[in-house]
């Protein structure tokens, strides 16, 4: 802060000698416009913007389907059609269904859980790069954008989960008290997705070719995550570390956890809990930190 003497001097010196603008700014307590806030301040700003995040996510979901005739119905139709295509492909044509009991439920659980993460990764990568005009026009913590995209996917997941539970019931699985744990695994996956979405948002903002590359990466991930096959069955003859690596894959862990609850009616083993929690915490911390580090550079183009 400035001293009264210098302020007085300035006030009295009508046609005073030129002084540096930086000094003038300092005397009046003006600060540089661009600076990255500290992490606690950043979190507080983000919390203040919670209404924007929610409204933005909802608005995007509403406007997404406003052009189509069936409108919001697509939120249910899309996951259903996806499951139907995969069931036709892997269940009927490739004949997986003989090896795994209740294959339709097995498959659709995998597809829906994986789709949640896959879509957050893809949309998270676009969350900054496709909102440059917004970033260049308004002030807000940039993390609001990837967060809104994850929330948007969460809203869509709500519809998918209803479809999933109904289909599991239709295929003859009984209702179980373990279903009460479904929100818990979804929460762990959500936290994992938030972290991953933030990480991808920064990658996508500065590596413009990421969006072209991502479909291949996520498809490889899909095939490695045991959506269509049982990992332990397929890796019987392979070395242990390979099987371990496949099961440590976060997507596979969340899928297996959900299958345990929905189909097999068994309490997930301890390693499943450890893997799911580990990935959620790890992704959140790394993703958030990585995103925040570049806060002031988003939108520079």
């Amino acid at each position, binding site marked *: *802060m*400035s001293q*009264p003497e210098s*302020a*007085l001097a300035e*006030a*009295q010196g*009508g046609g005073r000698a030129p002084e*540096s*603008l*930086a000094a*003038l*700014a300092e005397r*009046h*307590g*003006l*600060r*540089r*416009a*661009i600076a990255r806030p500290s992490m606690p301040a950043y979190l507080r700003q983000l919390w*203040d*913007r919670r*209404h*924007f995040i929610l*409204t*933005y996510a909802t*608005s*995007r979901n*509403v*406007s997404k389907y*406003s*052009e189509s005739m069936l409108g919001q119905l697509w939120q249910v139709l899309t996951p259903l059609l996806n499951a139907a295509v995969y069931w036709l492909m892997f269940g009927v044509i490739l004949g997986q269904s003989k090896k795994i009991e209740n294959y339709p439920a097995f498959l659709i659980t995998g597809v829906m859980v994986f789709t949640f993460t896959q879509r957050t990764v893809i949309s998270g990568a676009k969350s900054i790069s496709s*909102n440059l*005009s*917004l*970033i*260049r*026009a*308004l*002030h*807000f913590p940039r993390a609001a954008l990837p967060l809104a995209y994850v929330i948007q996917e969460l809203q869509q997941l709500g519809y998918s989960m209803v479809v999933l539970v109904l289909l599991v019931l239709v295929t003859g699985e009984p209702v179980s008290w373990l279903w009460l744990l479904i929100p818990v695994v979804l929460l762990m996956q959500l936290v994992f997705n938030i972290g991953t979405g933030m990480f991808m948002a920064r990658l996508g903002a500065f590596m*413009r070719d990421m969006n072209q590359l991502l479909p291949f990466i996520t498809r490889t991930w899909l095939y490695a995550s045991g959506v269509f096959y049982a990992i332990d069955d397929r890796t019987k003859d392979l070395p242990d570390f390979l099987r371990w690596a496949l099961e440590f894959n976060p997507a596979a862990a969340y899928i297996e956890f959900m299958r345990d609850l929905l189909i097999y009616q068994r309490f997930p083993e301890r390693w499943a809990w450890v893997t799911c929690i580990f990935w959620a915490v790890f992704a959140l911390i790394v993703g958030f930190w990585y995103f925040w580090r570049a806060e*002031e*550079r988003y*939108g*520079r*183009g």
Partner: protein
Amino acid sequence: MAELTKELSQVAPQTSETQNHETQNPKAGTPTVIVDDLHIVYKVYGSASDAEKGNAASALMRMLRRQGRPQMKEVHAVKGVSFVAHHGDAIGIIGRNGSGKSTLLRAIAGLLPPHKGAVYTNGQPSLLGVNAALMKELTGERNIILGCYAMGMTPSEVREKYDEIVDFSGIGDFVQFPMSTYSSGMGARLRFAISSAKTHDVLLIDEALATGDREFKKKSQQRIKQMRDAAGTVFLVAHNLDVIEETCNRVIWLHKGKIRMEGDPQEVLEAYNKA
């Protein structure tokens, strides 16, 4: 700081270097925005010349030779601009297309990082431009709420301002329809109504008055005057020189990223019209 400025204005209220301050605001005359030798450089993708466009094979060759993407160009939009803006100023920024006016505004708002030099501000200058947050498929109603939240309002503020925004925009029942059904004038009115609903310390306006009928133009000029009284400092970029002459007390003429002339609106505008 507040104490200091009060003291300052008691000691020598007339010695501030800015012109006409008839306002009784005790803060009048203290600097609010200082731009110090500001340079802005940004990168542009695309728009390759014909010779550079090439096919996949030549792209591969470039990669092998470790050359960058030829389509990426650097634009030096603002080249060493300095000025001091004070409380109570309404500063018009004029210049041809591509002279760096909008870039300068964005830099003052802290949305574009300076390549060299600095912008010093007190608090957060806000750009009057909520357009980017709105979605044309949504109803005016939803867009008002979305826009208000995007500017950082709280739910109670949004409820409070909602009717005022609808009234001011004058779109009436159209608020229930998607914005894609609006005429361009209606859209512009709604956008201006939303973005001017918030009070700001330092306000940056980019061509907000370009559209709308005469009645709305008058209304929005009124609103800018109000905001100027409340805000302290207003920056206005417009191609419409009448608006600048009527609202501003100072004009900066940008030419190819540099200040060509600065000062009293009449003098600068006269020179600008001759050029």
